[in-house]
């Protein structure tokens, strides 16, 4: 994949876009988790959410930089 994407004539790093995509995905997953009350099985929900976001972002970023 390209490392930069032209967006209305401005070069935007693909990573930035991926960051937003990952944030949306993590948010949706979090809402799903909360909907079925899964967070009660975890010790530290905030840390879990951060880690899930990091995993998603990392996995998506690997498609660009590899």
């Amino acid at each position: 994949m390209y490392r930069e994407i032209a967006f209305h004539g401005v070069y935007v790093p693909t990573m930035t876009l991926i960051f937003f995509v990952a944030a949306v995905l993590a948010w949706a997953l979090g809402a799903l988790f909360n909907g079925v009350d899964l967070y009660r099985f975890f010790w530290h929900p905030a840390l879990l959410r951060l880690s899930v976001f990091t995993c998603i972002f990392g996995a998506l970023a690997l498609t660009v930089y590899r």
Partner: protein
Amino acid sequence: MMALLQLKRRLASLEPRRNLVEWINNEGFTAIYLFKVLVASFLTLWLAMRLELPQPSTAITTVFIVMQPQSGHVLAKSIYRFIGTLVGSAFMVFLMAMFAQQTDLFLAGLAIWVCICSTGAARNRNFRAYGFVLAGYTAVMVGLPVVSHPDKVFMAAAWRVLEITLGIICATLVSATLLPRTASASMRNTLYQRFGNFAEFVVAGIRSTIDQKAFESGNVRFIAEAVNLEVLRSITIFEDPHMRRRNGRLNRLNSEFMAITTRFNALHQLIERLRHRGGESVALAIDPGLRELADALEQFAGHSLTPADAELLALRTQTYKAGLPEHVRHQRSALMQINPGANDLLDFHTAYELLYRFVDELHSYALTHSSLADHSHAREKWDEPFMPQTNWMAAIAAGLRSAFVLLFLSTFWILTTWPSGAAMTLVSALTVGLSAFSTNPKRMSFQIACGTLLAAAIGVFLVFFVYPLIDGFPLLCLVISPVIVLGSYWLVRPQWTGYGLGMLVFFGTSSIPDNMTLYNPYGLINDYIAMVFGMLVCAAAGAIILPPNSPWLLHRLEHDLRRRITFAINAPLKALGSSFESGSRDLLNQAYGLAAGKPMVQRKLLRWMLLVQEIGHAIIELRREQAVLPIHPSYAESQPWRQAIRAMGRALTRLFLKPTQGHFNRGLAAVEHAIDCAQRTEEPFASHFDTSVLRRIGSYLHFIRTSLLDPQSPLSEYASLVESKE
């Protein structure tokens, strides 16, 4: 965290170590907070330098401002800070595009913008106010430094947004993941304890072991707690998905709690009056019912109410409520044997009507509270939000004050062409903004100025004597950490907030090295002098221009409070109960804060508030009863009792807009006329209090009458004249 708790428990078992446990509870959490501030600010500083942002100081200042002991606050503040920064920067770019060559117009536009934002800040509660403050001063911070290079404003705005975003992200991450202390936990605590306090209050009130002073202070506490819980609720929905699922129920719980406190005040007022008036026979007839309730509630007094306890409470109130009609009939027949007067009978009915409603609402509250244990629940559906109510005058006063300060200082700057004028104007905009939503802007500005002075002394010393000697990032952290720790410590002490804010923010903006470090002693010292001068002007403005604790403003607030009656009479009936309750509580809470240090004024305000709530609540009940009347000729709109109630509404409106002897007499006559009409109307149903509408209406009308005649009410001077004439 678990280990810490266990350690605490073990220490608690040792008698001589109690002090240590207390220390862990208070200072230990502060220590954790300070540690988190340090971690977050160093992380931000390092990243900002590493990413070569032009002003790492902005990023680190963001961390100082955003960091709070509880992670929910940090999240809420961050989100509003981000929005405020975006709006402010966008406005600045626009303003610069319009008036780049006209400094006068440019500064005037800026003053108007700051005026609008400060008004918004004073008008809103919680962190939305903070968003407004930021929109105001970000515009100033972006624009003024580059006022002579208009072409740079766009990049300045873009960098600023990036720096602030970095600061926000680091602060949020650290505060949410590193030894978190959630706002939802503290909210749960407040919620659970509040009911315990209330139960204690009710038991003491029923048994008459509470004096007027304790009664008033208890009421003030419940009012403040209702408003604070709303603020906490609006914060926790940012923080905790668990709480977000319960948002509707929390809203409902607060609204129901306000309803039961008002109901209890009404009941208490009636009982006290009966006991003073010497209505022995009636008081004796009511007593058993009350005593039973006090016994049922005693178990909950002073303990926090967990959802399991709430279930028990629901069960208790259920049985009590089921037995009440039978009990009333029994007491009534006993009372009838001694041939009571018409007034006594009305007192008796009113007291039991209030008691029945109180228990009913208590039951509903208990059900909502116990439903908090479930992840989803039918009681979640609730569309009666907390309606804050503020006085526009106070908000506009804050706006005008800041616009004036900005105009004055920028004129001074243009006339003197002082090189540090930009710093002065900038800082004054920041200070008026930050003090706009404090109840005492003068003291706040003065504290910020003192903090800045201290920051200046430390900053000059560090920048010119220490920084040249050190090398590398770790040493820089080591050098600035004492300042950060001291400032953050002050920031979380309510009485010291201003000092901490001034110290952190202005140490951050001026003495943290930028990515291109400048060695300019005269410039820095000049800037600091300009800053302190700008702040002192703000403090003076806070004391002189429309200070919020001036008598006229308190007068306006009192007037607003009385106007709530008009609201109860005229506003649409949907969700009226909770918006009436929350609005009047919000008003009183503000007025009470502004009148701090004037106990006479506070007392008067509270009395008005209690009267307005009792009468307003009764009026709302009257309107509700009339809205669901069965179709029958004796309930028709044209019936004399309905016309009399409408006339009473008009008379009460006039009385509360302008309390005079004449209006009072007319209001009282209207209420008595309505009671008379209601009593003379024939009804198709048996006249039991659970079936007869007119008897309930009679009770509410009678209650309004007793409230008007209450010797504790602010109308008592007129009431005593009426009674002496009789």
